[in-house]
């Protein structure tokens, strides 16, 4: 039958090469480790103002604020000559700037950084399709819609829909489902 599993084991097999030079290899073991997950996605402006924060693992509020501060400082300090991957604690931070907004995601170690760049790019394309030539102001004034679109694109840190059309379509149909002011007032709450 299925072998037992203990969720709290963080499996890091460390092996020593024959030359004595230690290479750390984080291998996904047969037990215990899940697929590498995106931990969070942040959008912030060049002045460090947060525009969107999506957390895929539970963290206390204070910790979240601290991470946002750290990320902002770290990413804004990078020169444009640098590559888009930063190692931070045990995670890889992949970021990209689109106009005045920085998109910043945190991946667990074995994950594919180049694909993460594609995921962020796709999100920007979806925003663009929905808002029509999206700019930072759109996201400031319609932040809840930015979240709704994101929730149609990603779920639990994974891509749920790879079609550009369907994501926007679902969001728009959900928008239509939102009651008009009249309906809203007339409809009973509970």
């Amino acid at each position, binding site marked *: *039958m*299925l072998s037992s*599993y203990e969720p709290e*084991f*963080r499996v890091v*097999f*460390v*092996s*020593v090469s*024959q*030359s*004595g030079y*230690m*290479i*750390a*290899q*984080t291998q*996904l073991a047969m*037990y215990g480790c899940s*697929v590498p*997950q995106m931990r969070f996605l942040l959008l912030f402006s060049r002045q460090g*103002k*947060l525009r969107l*924060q999506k957390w895929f693992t*539970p963290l206390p*509020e204070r910790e979240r604020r601290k991470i946002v501060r750290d990320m902002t400082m770290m990413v804004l300090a990078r020169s444009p*000559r640098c*590559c*888009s*991957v*930063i*190692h931070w*604690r*045990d995670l890889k931070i992949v970021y990209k700037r689109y106009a005045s907004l920085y998109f910043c995601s945190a991946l667990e170690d074995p994950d*594919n*950084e*180049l*694909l993460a*760049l*594609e*995921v962020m790019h*796709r999100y920007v394309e979806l925003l663009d399709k929905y808002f029509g030539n999206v700019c930072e102001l759109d996201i400031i004034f319609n932040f*809840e819609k930015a979240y709704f679109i994101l*929730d149609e694109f990603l*779920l*639990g840190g*994974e*891509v*749920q*829909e*790879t*079609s550009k059309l*369907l994501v926007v379509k*679902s969001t728009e149909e*959900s928008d239509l*489902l939102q*009651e008009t002011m009249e309906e809203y*007032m007339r*409809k009973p*709450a509970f």
Partner: protein
Amino acid sequence: MPAPIRLRELIRTIRTARTQAEEREMIQKECAAIRSSFREEDNTYRCRNVAKLLYMHMLGYPAHFGQLECLKLIASQKFTDKRIGYLGAMLLLDERQDVHLLMTNCIKNDLNHSTQYVQGVALCTLGCMGSAEMCRDLAGEVEKLLKTSNSYLRKKAALCAVHVIRKVPELMEMFLPATKNLLNEKNHGVLHTSVVLLTEMCERSPDMLAHFRKLVPQLVRILKNLIMSGYSPEHDVSGISDPFLQVRILRLLRILGKGDDDSSEAMNDILAQVATNTETSKNVGNAILYETVLTIMDIKSESGLRVLAINILGRFLLNNDKNIRYVALTSLLKTVQTDHNAVQRHRSTIVDCLKDLDVSIKRRAMELSFALVNGNNVRGMMKELLHFLDMCDPEFKADCASGIFLAAEKYAPSKRWHIDTIMKVLTTAGSYVRDDSVPNLIQLITNSVEMHSYTVQRLYKAVLDDISQQPLVQVASWCMGEYGDLLVSGQCEEEEPIHVTEDEVLDVLEGVLVSNLSSPITRGYALTAIMKLSTRFSSVNRIKRVVSIYGSSIDVELQQRAVEYNALFKKYDHMRSALLERMPIMEKTTTNGPTEILHTNGEAEPSVRDSKHPPNIPQPSSQANDLLDLLGGNDVVPVIQTELPTKPASSGGELLDLLGDLSLSGVPAPAAPISVSQPTFLLDGISSQPLFNDVAGAIPPMTAYNKNGLKIDFTFERSNSNPNVSVITIHASNLTEVDMADFVFQAAVPKTFQLQLLSPSSNVVPGLNKGTVTQVIKVLNPQKQQLRMRIKLTYTHKGSSVQDLAEVNNFPTQSWQ
């Protein structure tokens, strides 16, 4: 009561604030209004108010008083309310607080709602922040939705199931029946999420993995169709069809093919196809290629395919895009052990990356360069690495210096080259060299007998120019103290001898003593060196004067030394020459290659030493450095990446112990009534603790594993430098008749621990218990939790390869308390 202002109105108003104080005032006013509105249980404007609260929360203001309101919104019948309510829940509610459990019933109802978008938003919330209890309660609903024909819901249910499995792994089995037909879907969204779900299940359970292996042909077919299919506008990214799905399939294939010949063979063709046909001009193509390379390297692919993969990485290295160069270096680092020769072919490109402007790339290139150094290329590589050491940022210098020392030690073509290399490192990056390098170097120099005059001459010239780099000055002082006579006599075979007088040497050493640049440790070295010269030089009076001056030094350490040396002059002059004799050669008790980390103290009597103490006592002082690495002192290095000096340390310990080393090794000191008290160790930065562990005897050993003739015992020591570190030595013995070759021991510990494995003594366990393989494990246990370990053993025995996993739970309590 006027209607609360609209969300966008509020945003506009807040943005007009010119100062932080003004903004805070506006926010406080609005929060007060919102609070009173909540108190009035206003259904009409609750949604608007919560939305405004979420905006203010994003600006950094507290919003916890809105948590219950979110729950009310979720319970509402209006879709507008639900949408904002669930969003608020995801942002404000925390699974740590019990209040989130109140959502469970609402979510349950919504999962059964007649409108798919309501079901969707409930699934999304559950899949994003559902706690373990919620997942347990609602797993059944998710499972039901996984079987629906509505693809919009099915894809969300699949990812929700992934989240449930992550939170409550025991529930994995219940999703198994629903996975039956997942891959038969045409809808890309469902396909993608199904592949993610299958991947999650396979990663967590070997039984699932075996069960799903039969899907390999189907996955290969799907991938093939994706590549061959025509242009599909909705999934296309720069000419590639659905790269997200391609990458996920490749990843699942990697997991299914790992260690399995048949599956690996079934996917060989498609991997070759993807590797050769994918367009590489844009990032998206490279993302797929990258995943393909990772898959090829992990499964049992044929050698042609592996070479293809490494060549792709080589091409990546030449790409203009920095990100691609970066991932190439990372992957090459992972493969350099298994495919060393193939990676060697790209050595020159890798070395060029040392000159890259990007910090992350430089670091990867440096690590990879060190891994590629071998006997053939050591001269060339060292030149490049020394150049790098000169030019690089300070954050790299320590690691680079250590790496160079390691590599030089292993592959030095000649002693002179070795010493020259060390000199270059000391002069280029002298202040960044790790503390434990100084004793190592001193030992190296001592053992290269024929190079003594050359070495001391070069060191002398170096400190004439610059006395600011402490490690350089320390080594130089020590050498001048030891070999000052050679320096003055002007005998040097390797180089043009220089003319140095005794006074000039003493000038330099006194200069070090008085200089502001010298650290207390360096001063200690200098004073001792001057003292040693009293038996080698004739200007004893000058030395006597210096020593007596420092007898009243403010620095206690210097004072003590000076007083003792003074006493040597006055009362024990007859012993002086014997005590200050030339240092004997220190036998290295380890060999190069897969070495044990053997750090022995004074080797004045190596044979006595060996019989007195078991060979595997790890060196606490260098552990201090390794532990710092373990504790994540270095941001840039992922996981555990520590440099392990493979040579035994500390002839430096002897430095202080001119008199004391004799007593430590058990040979009675020649009646030296001069107290060399233990505290002097502490002030010598080289070894700050006594090097032996009395506690060794206190923790009973245990048998960790005993199966099929392979027995593994654990013995324990406590590290002196850190009470949270347990040092475990494994002793593997083989009771069968046949040797066990290619023996590899691996270990894993729970998340709250950290683990460091040092080099094994060998990888052959000889049969009939003729010998043991030993290896040292260091476990950091800051929370003092019960120690548990999973071990993985692989070896070849009687021609076949054996692999076994086991759990070790019977640790004696003293080992972790």
